[in-house]
C-alpha cells in the first residue's frame, strides 16, 4: 500500500494538526504584600499543602500563605474522606455500627469499640462483668502502645528520618497486632467489644503471649529512647517549635497527650474513672513547654505507664463471665433518652453521644472526634514558623483522617 503512505504523511503534516496551547495551571497563587506605609513590600505565596502530600497522613489539605519561608496564614481543609458515618449509623441498629466504629480511627479500633460500648451501656443501663472490664483495659492499653509507637515513627518520618524509626515502630506494633488477631480474628478491624462485655473470651495461652510482649516492650522503649530522645537533630528540630499555651489549649478543647504536654493535668482515666481504672496505680505524665518535643516525650512516658497498667491487669485478672446476661443481642431497644459517654483514647477524648427514641436504631448518633478538634489550634501553632515545621506540627497533633472526616 505504497500509495497510501503519502496521504498519511500529508495528514500528519504540522499545518493540519492543531495543538491547542495549554499552559499548566500553577498550584500556587502570588498575592501582593503591602508594608505598613501602604507601599508594595514583596510578595506572599499561597500554596496548597496536600491533599496528596506524604506528610498529611491521608487526604488532608492545608492552604498556607507564606512570606518567604514563614507561615502567615494556614487554613485546614477537610472532607476528602467524608462518608457521613453518623447518618449511616442512624440508619442501622445499635450493634450494626459497632464494626463501623473500627474504621473511625483505624489504628485504634479497640478504644473506638470501647467508647461506643460505654455510651450504649450508659444509655441502656448495662453492667459489665469484672473479667470483661479487665480485658477491655488490657486491649485499650495495648492499643495505646500501638498508637503512640506508630505516632513516634510517623513523626520521625515527617522530620526526614526516612524509614528506620518507623520500621522499628512497626516491628513492635506487629507483635501486638498478632495478639489482636488471635483474640478477635482481625489485626486492625477488631470489632471486639459488645454492649455489656466482650465478644469472645481470651484464647488459651493468650495471656502468657501478651505478658511476653509487654515484658519485652520496656526494652524496646529503652532502645527507642536511646536512638531518639537525645538525638541532636530531633532536639534541634522539635524543641521550641509549635509552642501551645495551656490557656489556649483548654479554651480550644484540646485533649489527650497534646493537652498534657502543655502541663494541664487532665486524664479522663483519672477524672471519670470509667471502667475500673481507679484500681490501677499509674501516673499522668505532664510536659511544661507545650512544644513538639514535649508531645513526643509525653507519648513515650505514657507508654511506660501503659506497661505498668498492663502488668497490674495481667496479675489481677479474674475468671468469670465476659458479658452481662441482661444484654440482649436481638431486639435491643434502649428506653427513650440520651447519654454521652467518653473515654481517654490514645488521641484524646473520644466520646459518643446517643439519643434513643425507643426504636432499634439510634435517633441521633454522634462521634466526638479528638483528631478533628485537636486541629483547631494548628494555625496558632504554625504562625510565624518555617514551612518545614508545619509538617512536624501536624505530625505531633496525631491525626487519622478516618476520624477527622468521618
Amino acid at each position: 500500500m505504497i500509495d497510501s503512505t503519502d496521504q498519511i504523511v500529508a495528514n500528519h503534516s504540522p499545518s493540519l494538526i492543531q495543538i491547542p496551547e495549554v499552559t499548566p495551571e500553577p498550584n500556587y497563587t502570588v498575592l501582593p504584600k503591602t508594608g505598613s506605609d501602604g507601599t508594595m513590600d514583596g510578595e506572599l505565596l499561597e500554596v496548597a499543602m496536600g491533599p496528596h502530600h506524604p506528610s498529611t497522613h491521608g487526604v488532608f489539605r492545608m492552604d498556607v500563605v507564606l512570606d518567604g519561608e514563614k507561615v502567615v496564614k494556614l487554613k485546614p481543609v477537610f472532607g476528602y474522606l467524608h462518608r457521613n458515618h453518623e447518618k449511616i449509623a442512624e440508619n442501622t441498629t445499635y450493634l450494626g455500627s459497632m464494626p463501623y466504629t473500627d474504621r473511625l480511627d483505624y489504628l485504634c479500633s479497640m478504644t473506638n469499640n470501647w467508647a461506643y460500648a460505654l455510651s450504649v451501656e450508659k444509655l441502656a443501663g448495662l453492667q459489665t462483668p469484672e473479667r470483661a472490664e479487665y480485658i477491655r483495659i488490657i486491649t485499650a492499653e495495648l492499643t495505646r502502645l500501638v498508637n503512640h509507637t506508630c505516632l513516634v515513627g510517623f513523626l520521625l518520618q515527617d522530620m526526614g528520618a526516612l524509614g528506620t524509626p518507623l520500621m522499628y515502630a512497626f516491628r513492635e506494633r506487629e507483635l501486638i497486632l498478632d495478639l489482636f488477631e488471635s483474640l478477635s480474628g482481625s489485626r486492625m478491624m477488631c470489632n471486639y467489644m459488645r454492649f455489656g462485655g466482650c465478644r469472645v473470651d481470651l484464647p488459651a495461652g493468650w495471656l502468657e503471649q501478651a505478658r511476653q510482649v509487654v515484658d519485652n516492650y520496656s526494652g524496646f522503649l529503652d532502645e527507642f529512647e536511646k536512638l531518639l530522645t537525645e538525638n541532636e537533630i530531633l532536639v534541634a528540630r522539635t524543641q521550641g517549635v509549635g509552642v501551645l499555651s495551656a490557656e489556649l489549649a483548654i479554651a480550644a478543647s484540646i485533649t489527650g497527650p497534646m493537652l498534657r504536654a502543655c502541663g494541664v493535668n487532665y486524664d479522663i482515666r483519672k477524672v471519670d474513672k470509667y471502667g475500673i481504672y481507679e484500681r490501677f496505680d499509674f501516673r499522668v505524665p505532664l510536659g511544661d513547654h507545650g512544644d513538639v518535643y514535649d508531645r513526643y516525650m509525653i507519648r513515650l512516658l505514657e507508654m511506660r505507664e501503659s506497661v505498668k497498667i498492663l502488668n497490674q491487669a495481667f496479675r489481677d485478672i479474674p475468671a468469670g463471665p465476659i458479658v452481662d446476661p441482661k444484654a440482649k443481642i436481638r431486639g435491643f431497644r434502649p428506653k427513650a433518652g440520651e447519654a454521652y459517654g467518653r473515654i481517654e483514647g490514645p488521641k484524646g477524648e473520644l466520646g459518643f453521644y446517643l439519643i434513643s427514641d425507643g426504636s432499634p436504631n439510634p435517633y441521633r448518633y454522634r462521634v466526638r472526634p479528638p483528631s478533628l478538634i485537636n486541629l483547631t489550634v494548628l494555625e496558632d501553632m504554625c504562625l510565624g514558623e518555617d514551612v518545614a515545621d508545619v509538617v512536624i506540627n501536624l505530625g505531633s497533633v496525631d491525626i487519622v483522617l478516618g476520624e477527622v472526616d468521618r
Partner: protein
Amino acid sequence: METLEQIKASLETSVPGVKLEIIPNESPSGQRSLLVDNAHGVAVAKFLRDDPQLRLDYCSNVTGVDWLDTVLKEKVKAKQLVEGVEKEVEQQIETKRAGYLEAVYHLYSMALKHGPVIIRLRTENRSDKNHLPSLTPVWRGAEFQEREIFDLYGVIFDGHPDLRRILMWDGYVDHPMRKDYVEPDDYDYEPTPHDEVLEKVKQRQPAEAKP
C-alpha cells in the same frame, strides 16, 4: 458539683431575663440538660465559664439534632358523666409540635474536674428561622463543631468567626444530616452491550425516555 436546679437558680439571679427549662432524661444515664433561650445564650455561656463554683472552661462536645414536626399523643384519665353515672374515661390528647433544630453543648471543667453540664439551644423552626447564637467566642473548641452543624444541619450561628462548610464541598446546597434529607439518584442509565439485556432495560423504561 452543684445540681442542675442550683445552676438554674444561680443563672436566673445573675442573668436577668433568662428563660431556662430543665429537660428530663428518662434513660439510666440520667444526664439532664438545660434549655437556654437564644437571646441569652452567650451570657449564660459566659457565666458558666467564669463562675468560680462551676468554671466550665472545657466545651467538650457540640452537636446538632433535628426534630421533625410531630404529633404528640398523651393519654389522660378524665371523669365523665356516661348515662348518668360518673365514670373514668381515657382520653387521648393530640398536640402538634413544630419541628426545630437543636444544638447541644456538653461542658466540663478542667480546673475543678467535674461535669458534664449539658445546655441546649433551639431554633424557632427548621426552615427560615434557623439562627442560633454562636458560642465560639466563649469556647474556641466549638469552632469546627459549629461549622459542622452549619454544614450538616443548616443552623446559622450568629457571631461565628468563620462559618463555612467543613465536610461537604462549597457550593453543596442541602444538609445531609437532616431527617428528611433525600439521597440523590446518582447513577445513570448505562446500557450493556448485550442485546437481551438492552431490550429488557428499554422495556422497563417509560415511553418518553426510550431512544
